[in-house]
């Protein structure tokens, strides 16, 4: 199967990006180095082409009711101009995807989904929307998306005369115009820093990328993106979340609002006894990688690393791990099997970094 290319493909080549297949697209893995790019986001400003992600629009009288039923998190109380993160669950409580839903206007909602799950999410939502007076449109092929992340994001948008965005609170969303074209800007991101996600029609995305470059935004690839989200302990579907896991297994209890009247998966999640616990571990030397076993003090396997990397900020190996609840060690000691060695990990209660988001 031939790989798709985003509208920014040539821009990536111009910046000497190392390209690779991801979710059916040819995407930039890195431009300079993941470490440099990640540090640029934490200290200044970085930008990511995430045009491969999916954009669905829900419009109509019962758009809000539909979203509130579809998601475990409380979309109903959100209000126009706000966005929310939520898993997307089946009746049995397992997770189809995780996503962000943006309440753009009273009867118009944008849902941004993972590139690898576009078809799966579409099929599921089509089924569920039947009872509601609203429409679902897949506009993934009509939108490009740049994530602009870092302490200088706000200042840079000001320079581009995107002043509406500057007034947004964290997780706010607004419609604006760039080059006389309607775009959507949200104060959301996957890095933990202040920043914006700019949903634009293809015809203006190259100009936007070039302008942001001129204002000092550092192009960042998918490897840096993964490093940044692990540092702030954001889950990745396919690693911490899957079709076999319940939100309670993956530290997503906070996204499930059981006080809501009714939503997909409510009963199952209510009655569910979590099988796993998602924990945070760090080691001083080396990288605790996805798939490495996690052991207890007696070297018995109790779980595995779901995501791991070297944090350029902390200069330590940092990882998320799913531990079998029934094997959770009383002494709270965890060892990561790195090739032949069992290295003791430091257990973290809080994310390794919080980042500078508003």
């Amino acid at each position, binding site marked *: 199967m031939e790989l798709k290319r985003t509208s920014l493909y040539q821009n990536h080549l111009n910046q000497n990006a190392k390209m690779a297949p991801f979710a059916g697209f040819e995407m930039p893995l*890195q431009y300079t180095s*993941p*470490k440099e790019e990640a540090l640029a986001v934490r200290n200044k400003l970085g930008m990511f082409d995430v045009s491969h992600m999916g954009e669905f629009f829900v419009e109509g009288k019962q758009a809000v009711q539909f979203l509130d039923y579809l998601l475990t998190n409380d979309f109903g109380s959100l209000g126009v101009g706000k966005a929310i993160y939520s898993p997307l669950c089946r009746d049995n409580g397992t997770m189809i995807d995780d996503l962000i839903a943006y309440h753009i206007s009273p009867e118009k909602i944008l849902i941004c989904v993972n590139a690898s799950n576009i078809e799966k999410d579409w099929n599921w939502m089509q089924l569920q929307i039947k009872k509601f007076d609203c429409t679902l449109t897949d506009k993934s092929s009509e939108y490009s998306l740049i994530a602009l992340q870092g302490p200088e994001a706000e200042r840079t948008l000001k320079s581009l005369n995107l002043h509406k965005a500057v007034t947004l609170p964290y997780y706010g969303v607004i419609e604006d115009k760039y080059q006389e074209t309607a775009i959507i800007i949200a104060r959301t991101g996957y890095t933990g820093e202040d920043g914006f996600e700019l949903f634009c029609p293809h015809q203006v995305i190259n100009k936007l990328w070039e302008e942001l470059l001129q204002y000092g935004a550092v192009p960042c690839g998918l*490897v840096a993106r993964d490093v940044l989200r692990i540092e702030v302990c954001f889950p990745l579907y396919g690693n911490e979340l899957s079709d076999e896991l319940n939100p309670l297994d993956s530290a997503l209890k906070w996204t499930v609002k059981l006080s809501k009247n009714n939503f997909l998966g409510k009963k199952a999640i209510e009655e569910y006894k979590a099988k796993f616990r998602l924990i945070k571990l760090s080691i001083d030397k080396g*990288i605790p*990688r996805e798939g490495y076993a996690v052991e207890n003090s007696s070297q018995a396997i109790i779980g595995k690393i779901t995501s791991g990397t070297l944090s350029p900020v902390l200069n330590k190996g940092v990882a998320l791990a799913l531990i079998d609840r029934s094997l959770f060690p009383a002494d709270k000691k965890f060892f990561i099997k790195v*090739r032949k060695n069992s290295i003791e990990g430091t257990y973290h209660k809080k994310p390794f970094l919080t980042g500078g988001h508003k």
Partner: protein
Amino acid sequence: MTAKVLDHLKYTVDHDWILIENDILTIGITDFAQASLGDIVFVELPEVGSSFSAGDAFGVVESIKSVTDLHIPISGEIIEINEQISDEPELCNKAPFESWLIKVKPSSSSEIEALISAENYKKHCNSIE
């Protein structure tokens, strides 16, 4: 990319460089290797005194995205390892030919003859670029 190649060293197709001094072989990774690996963030070296056969994995080089085995070009015993590299793995990127990894006492001289010359290594690099 024109990777740097030093003429007085020997090489392998796996991008190791080898310095032969009397009875001791000093081994590191080449400029070509460090450029393809990207930023090296961790190097795992063997224990001094351990023995390997030609082709065995003697250590590991890690970048953010990958783990790459290092294979020993000749059979022998590890007589010294470069401790500095453990603390500063990035030296392999900055100065690949100064950042030796292991010193080996070889157990076979015929294997040394199988190492390739600088000239042939240059050709090999050009052919795979």
